[in-house]
């Protein structure tokens, strides 16, 4: 069964990506996590995302396109990336989500993919 792990990162997580003393640890832990998913044979997709200020939100209303700078919702933690994993059940998915580095600093949401 496929699940998507949505990674919600704090402001300090996002700034750790580009520099400062936490940069090494940040990328190191994601590399290790991705490698662990790959070696377990369960990684089915995913991508890291640029931070929320680079987001543009689009709505189509009354035939008119509304473009808005910024993410869909302004929250303390922002979507920073996602993984798609293939595991037998929710408990396994939660086990993997708990290992995601953002679980310790931001929040990680697990959603079952809609089977298509």
């Amino acid at each position, binding site marked *: *069964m496929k*699940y998507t792990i949505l990674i919600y990162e704090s402001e300090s997580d996002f700034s750790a990506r580009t520099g400062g003393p936490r940069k090494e640890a940040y990328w190191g832990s994601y590399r290790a996590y991705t490698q662990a998913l790959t070696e377990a044979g369960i990684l089915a997709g995913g991508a890291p995302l640029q931070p929320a200020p680079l987001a543009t939100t689009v709505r189509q209303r009354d035939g008119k396109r509304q473009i808005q700078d910024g993410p869909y919702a302004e929250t303390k933690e922002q979507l920073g990336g996602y993984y798609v994993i293939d595991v*037998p*059940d*929710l*408990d396994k*998915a*939660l086990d993997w989500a708990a290992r995601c580095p953002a679980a310790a600093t931001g929040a990680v949401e697990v959603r*079952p993919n809609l089977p298509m």
Partner: protein
Amino acid sequence: MSHAAAELAARVSYGRLLAYLAARSRDVTAAEDALGEAFVAALETWPRAGVPDKAEAWLLAVARRRLIDGARHAKVEDVAAAALHIVVDRAEQEASSKALFPDERLKLLFVCAHPAIDEAARTPLMLQTVLGLDAARIASAFLVAPAAMGQRLVRVKAKIRDAGIRFEIPEPRELPSRLEAVLQAIYAAYDSGWEDVAGADPRRQGLAEEAIWLGRLVTRLLPDEPEGRGLLALMLHCEARRWARRDAEGRYVPLTRQDVALWSQPLIEEAEEILAAASKAMKPSRFQLEAAIQSVHAQRAVTGHTDWEAIALLYEGLIRLAPTIGAQVGSAAALAEAKGDDAGLSALEAIPPEAVAGYQPYWALSAHLLKRLGRAAEAREAYARAVGLSEDPAVRDFLRDSF
């Protein structure tokens, strides 16, 4: 056989079958659909005609006829119904064989109290699936509108199916915390029945008994886990005092003033035996400690007095394991009796005020201690808050009369 015994037999068989079907299809709703009419038929027939020899096989035979009818009506049978058909066939083979029908109810209990399930829905889900109580009855016990309860239950069952929650006994490393959630959900059912003293409220009638039944079930299915026994002992100790909680005029009687002659000695003895068996495992835990506190209270029936020092010590242990507001207030009450009202009051004052703003027992104890210390104005204020937070009119009257 009495009507109640036949009904219980129907509930037991229903719970076993539902667990079996749901564990294989992961679809609680589909399993309920398959068994629902058969269960109604059993509730109707068994008290009259007696419980059939192979109770599960009887239910399955009725369920199967219904599945076949359903398929005929639907013409095109959907995949889920087909899958369920196969499971029912297999269950029928198991049910008619000589061996005992496999009991998957423990897995079902763990699913109901899974951390991914909305906490408010866990107890209702357990009562509905394991015991076959209907949503309307559960709703009234939890003082929720039936439609709202029905929706909540539909939602969690969809989540179990679509989020892929497995029907498994948790791994050993997870077992303690997962079991805690199961026991917590059972205790919540007991609590809801307990609030209703002497079954005065028909909407809540019997829920305490259902909870004790679930407690017995967990104890039997997980005999090596002492915490299930701890909860069962706790519930039995409380149940033993049910008839002493009101006087002849229906007035509230606090534990320390209850007439011990009204306590049920057989229930107390059973609770003591179960607690003794639990403590052999040497794994003290929350419910065992709470049961031990009730056990000390029960001693009053024999010794004529309450050993508050022992109770204070047990609360100290309880707070270390589970620092709930309830435990902290209980501990303050014990300290007040063992070491004096000042000690009790300072223990109360050590609890963060924001945690107790809406907690009735805190204000009731506060009022009581302030009054005994002669701080009348503060006591009056605390009594007022306690009265305002009380649900039970008898408790409100008691608090008003105390001042």
